[in-house]
């Protein structure tokens, strides 16, 4: 199963991932058109900083033992049996923000216009998450854990 990996030491906190994410989840999926949309585009990922020690983007980790799943009062959150990721059924979400209360990473945001939680779905409809494609330093990697390990090894050698 493909996962999202973050290499902290490569992140420069340029926040390209945030912009790419917001645009990818807008109606037009276009930077210039999206900012004119009625509901402003919002990112599902956020670069967190503990300057100058570290910075890295944080988004839903699709945890193995997710706290948000226990907290969801409406049954809107569930694990997709095929992909293994946590999915949100937007029709069932009531905007109670129990998941925001539960997520240890602070990776879920409250929707501004609709009372629906905003969280990363690893861009299921795309081949590669928008944030990964946008990262200029390749701090983000999307792929099988084995692939990532291999990549790390080659990087270290170089």
């Amino acid at each position, binding site marked *: 199963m493909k*996962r999202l990996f973050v290499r902290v030491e490569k992140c420069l906190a340029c926040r390209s991932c945030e912009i790419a994410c917001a645009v990818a989840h807008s109606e037009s999926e276009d930077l210039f058109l999206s900012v004119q949309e009625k509901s402003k585009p919002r990112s599902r990922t956020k670069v967190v900083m503990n300057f100058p020690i570290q910075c890295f983007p*944080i988004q839903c980790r699709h945890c193995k033992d997710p706290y948000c799943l226990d907290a969801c*009062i409406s*049954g809107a959150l569930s694990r997709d049996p095929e992909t293994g990721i946590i999915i949100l059924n937007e029709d069932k979400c009531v905007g109670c923000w129990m*998941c*925001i*209360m539960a997520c240890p*990473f602070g990776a879920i945001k409250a929707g501004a216009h609709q009372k629906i939680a905003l969280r990363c779905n690893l861009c299921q409809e795309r081949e590669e998450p928008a944030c990964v494609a946008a990262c200029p330093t390749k701090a983000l990697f999307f792929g099988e854990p084995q692939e990532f390990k291999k990549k790390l090894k080659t990087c270290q050698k170089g």
Partner: protein
Amino acid sequence: MRYLIIGNCIAGINAATSIRNLDTRNDVTIISDEKYPAYGRCLISYYLAGTHREKDILLKEKDFYQTSHIELLLKNKVTSIEPESKRVVLKNGKKIKYDKLLLATGARAVPLGVEGENKKGVFRFRTLDDAKSILKLVPSSQRALVFGGGLIGLKTGYALKKQGLDVEIIVKSPFILSRVADRNSAQLITSWLIDNGIKIRTGLGPRTILGNKWVEGVVLDSGEKEECQIIIAGKGVISNMEMADNVGIRTHWGIVTDSFLKTSMDNIYAAGDVAETRDLVTGEYVTSARWTSAAEQGRIAGLNMAGEPKEYPGSIPCNSAEFFGLPIISMGHVQENDEGYETTVRSHPGEYRYKKIVVHKDRLVGAILIGRVENAGVYLALIRKKADISCVKHLLLEDWFDYGKVSHLIEGQDGFRESMSIGGDIIRIS
């Protein structure tokens, strides 16, 4: 072999799901005295408000029980347990055998304990049926009184206001939400609710309920008379533990459980609002009566019943609610009067925003967030981890506080769920 679960709310179905994930061979049966498949109990206020229909508040897909091979016996009340023969007795006299039994019987509303309580128009607010019977009376009513200013009282009041009724919430304690908020935050929420048309009075309770067959009003303990057609009893809940009591299972506030959620009797477990478990922060044994705890307990009890031992770490009281667009989250222990507890507050005069943290011996033990609730879970993680926060204490109230500021305290210590793996990893190469 049969796993028998009494109770079809989140603790019950989570236990059934856990069992099914480990054991596909044996029978799993859920018994419920209600007539609906599992629904979000916290969502009945949405149903009462008229924003959600019955099918909107169901927790699972229609075919959930069928595809998971879980037998569901609705409209069946268990009257007693026969531990010697490992059977439960139903109200209709039928007996059902079990090998492992889960008591997820929940809790019920505390009655008001006043004269006239059995008149028509006095309601509890606990089940979908309660919501339906209140809803029937709404068109012919103008005024509703809610006794109790806890979350249930407030949510009921909010829903009835949405239905266009004149709502008054009457609380015995000096301020609303006295179990989950402090005085200042309660005042902030009170003024928000008043701005939105809900009346709130404190320091008062009911004395007598007036009317013949139907409720016509209430005499308060101050002697005042108030007219109303609907009365809601929202003064807390008590565990449905009589059945366990009768057969000698140890009970106290609820059914006493060990750290594997087993009761004092072999092969019988308890989870959810009925179970008494350890509070993660204080170490005291309490009935949590909160959704999150019930869900986690059910899941873990199921694992233990199916033979995969898993310890329940304990509960942290926490809840989230939204009234007229104002989000409120409270977690842990937020009362300030105890010695040795250090509280810091950031409020914004003129704005509906409030953030408070409670620290005890360099550990975060409680937080209240009103107005802006992002990153609330990061606080909860710090409470759960019992992390030493002395080095980050000055950051906790800042608007720009986030996971990055405390990741070193949350990650990679014992007791944190092996969580960060499936979706990916945050890799640090030193």
